[in-house]
């Protein structure tokens, strides 16, 4: 089941869609895949697709391999949060939208600011 969810996640991402999991028993939403809802332990889970909009929960800048690199936690409108690289310099609370980049032969979500530089 865990491997199936991971496969489904990667398939969705390769099609440029951001997956998340909703627990049908308690309504909990989360990103990092698991077989059981970490809140109520229900196995009644459903993989859904996010609209891709969210806002910066926190962000930091450091010198990465290609210069200024932004890393942060993004809170999606559906209510779940995800670690990600962010394309530009933003403030906490700024709106972002998902984009996909290719990394080691698969696509991964990163975020781009709707404001900022």
């Amino acid at each position, binding site marked *: 089941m865990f491997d199936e969810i991971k496969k489904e996640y990667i398939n969705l991402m390769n099609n440029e869609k951001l997956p998340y999991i909703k627990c049908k028993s308690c309504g909990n939403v989360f990103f990092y895949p698991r077989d059981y809802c970490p809140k109520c332990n229900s196995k009644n889970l459903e993989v859904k697709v996010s609209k891709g909009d969210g806002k910066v929960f*926190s*962000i930091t800048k*450091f010198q990465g391999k290609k210069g200024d690199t932004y*890393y942060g936690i993004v809170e999606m409108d559906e209510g779940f949060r995800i670690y990600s690289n962010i394309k530009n310099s933003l403030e*906490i*609370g700024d709106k972002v939208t998902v984009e996909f980049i290719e990394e080691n032969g698969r696509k991964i979500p990163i975020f781009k600011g709707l404001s900022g530089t």
Partner: protein
Amino acid sequence: MITGFAGLTYKKFEGSTFQLLSDVVYNAMEMASVNSNDIDGLFFTMLSGTFDGKANIHFPSFQIPAFLGIKPRYIDIVDYGGPSALTMVYRAEKLVNSGEIDTALCIVGGKGSFLRENKVTADSVDKFYNISLTPFDEFFRVYEDMNPVTDYALVAKRHQKLFGTTDEQRAMIAVNQRKNAINNEKSLYKSPLSVKDVISSRLVSDPLRLLEIVYPVDGFHAFIVSKHQRNSNLRPLKIHFYGEAHWAEMPPELPDIVYTPTIESSKGVSLEKIDAFELYDSFTITVLLEIEDIGLTEKGKGGKFVEEKDTTFKGEIPINTGGGSLNVGQPAFMSGGVILEEALSQLNGMAKGHQVEGANRVLVNGIGGWNRGHAVTMVLGE
């Protein structure tokens, strides 16, 4: 009771990890006036890559006793980073009190230099050894980060945003700890430090700067817990309070990232009559969070607290009286041994040059594990 302790830290130790380990263990046994035949309980912790550059050593529960020549009847591996040292001593004390064992040896440390020289941190050891760290690696380790620094930077950034905490306030923590470090013979850094020095040091991960971040060193700490006091001159210390909390969530799944499990591990502790606080200081922000989570001030007021209170060893609320690991260094990416050693030095009047006068009760708080997942709060006193 704790009848012996020892710690040795080096910027870089040229010999093997086992050699360094035995030096420390034999120093601690000497203080406790026990020998390897007396040790019947063994507690240790180990972090990937910190034993002579190995991802792990094969069955350390075999290799460590074999090298030290001890034959334990009881072995416990405590693996949650920073607070492990505190937990080992606590569990050892319980087993000694119950009569299960007589004398326990607790070990924490290793060599950080090998990983440091290869630009690897405890949180990025996967990239070096090609091992998986979490069940979520393919959705999380694919990003470019600089953990653990970036992770704590996210906390510091959010703390700033939510509470208006300033860079200068965080810098005050480094400045006051340096004042404490100047006279500590174990300290690696002894030159005076100003707020300006801290905020003009290199920005490593916004907003955290170089002088707010712990330096990984080589070193071990060993603690002997025994029912025999023998020739040990240490005060018969008791554990007056012990609390432990573990938050397993990935930080994005926590209700917020500006809290640590200390809020839970310190529940019910009395802050009255505490003469010194040894708080885990992987970063300045870690200390700030603990100050709030222990309840020295309310959440969000930590910045103001460090601005207004004198936290040096001569001050009203002494914090990290030996300079903390920010100045002593962090052996094998875990500072638990450093803060526990300092607490024991204070309580035994052995803190030359940075002794808190009449230190009878010390609160030690450990934070550890990947992403602040664990906390242990302990109060030691006679």
